[in-house]
């Protein structure tokens, strides 16, 4: 089973360029068409389940707007705790 992850998109930075949407292997990103950032862009959002925390969206984001988190698998969690 794939790792579970999630992301946060800082709307101060996001310009709705869709590069993250285009890159996300899980296709879990979309633009929020109901909202506008102060600069007038529709920000990206995590809009479906299935994010693996692979950080590919963050790697392609030109605005460094994305923070990525991931559940630690039990084994790794143990090693982190150690």
């Amino acid at each position: 089973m794939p790792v579970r992850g999630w992301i946060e998109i800082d709307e101060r930075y996001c310009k709705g360029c869709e590069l993250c949407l285009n890159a996300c292997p899980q296709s879990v990103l979309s633009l929020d068409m109901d909202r506008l950032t102060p600069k007038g862009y529709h920000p990206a959002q995590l809009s479906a389940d299935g994010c693996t925390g692979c950080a590919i969206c963050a790697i392609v984001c030109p605005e460094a707007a994305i923070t990525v988190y991931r559940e630690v698998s039990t084994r790794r969690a143990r090693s982190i705790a150690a």
Partner: protein
Amino acid sequence: MQTEIVIAGFGGQGILFAGQVLAYAAMDSGKEVTWIPSYGPEMRGGTANCTVIIADEEIGSPLVRNPKGVIALNLPSFDRYESLVVPGGILIVNASLVNRAVQRKDLKSILVPANEIAESLGDKRLATMILAGALLVYLPVLPVEAVEKALRDHLPERHRKLLPLNFKALRTGADFALKATLSPLSSQN
């Protein structure tokens, strides 16, 4: 008689073009006119505005401190120009990107959700044209027909297909303005 119009917002909102359309319309109506832009170094999203002066005689300064009409497409422009519109002047505000009310009571103002309307028409770059339609309702320096003619005559070849949309934007803006709550005249709610 001289009428000064400032259109101000971000680059990419079609501001400079809308101003030019007004200027063409004015020239073709036999008026004197100046159009002058001012922009930041950014290609997209930076400050962009233009001043259009329409007059019956030779125009001196192409810039004025206190314009008669202002279209403010974003919050910074609104913040800057609200205090500058001449008393009794017109202030048209893009409500999509402005989250506060007009403070001044000595001018006519309308808030138009131009981005939303533009997107509903199919192209967000129409925002300024919508607001221009609204402006001309209350600052009748040019008939809408003259502006439409200017659009028809001067829209670059490659954008010719956008002509109907631009007409629609102008009309939609005008309609919105006619129906809208004009503050402060009929405001206070």
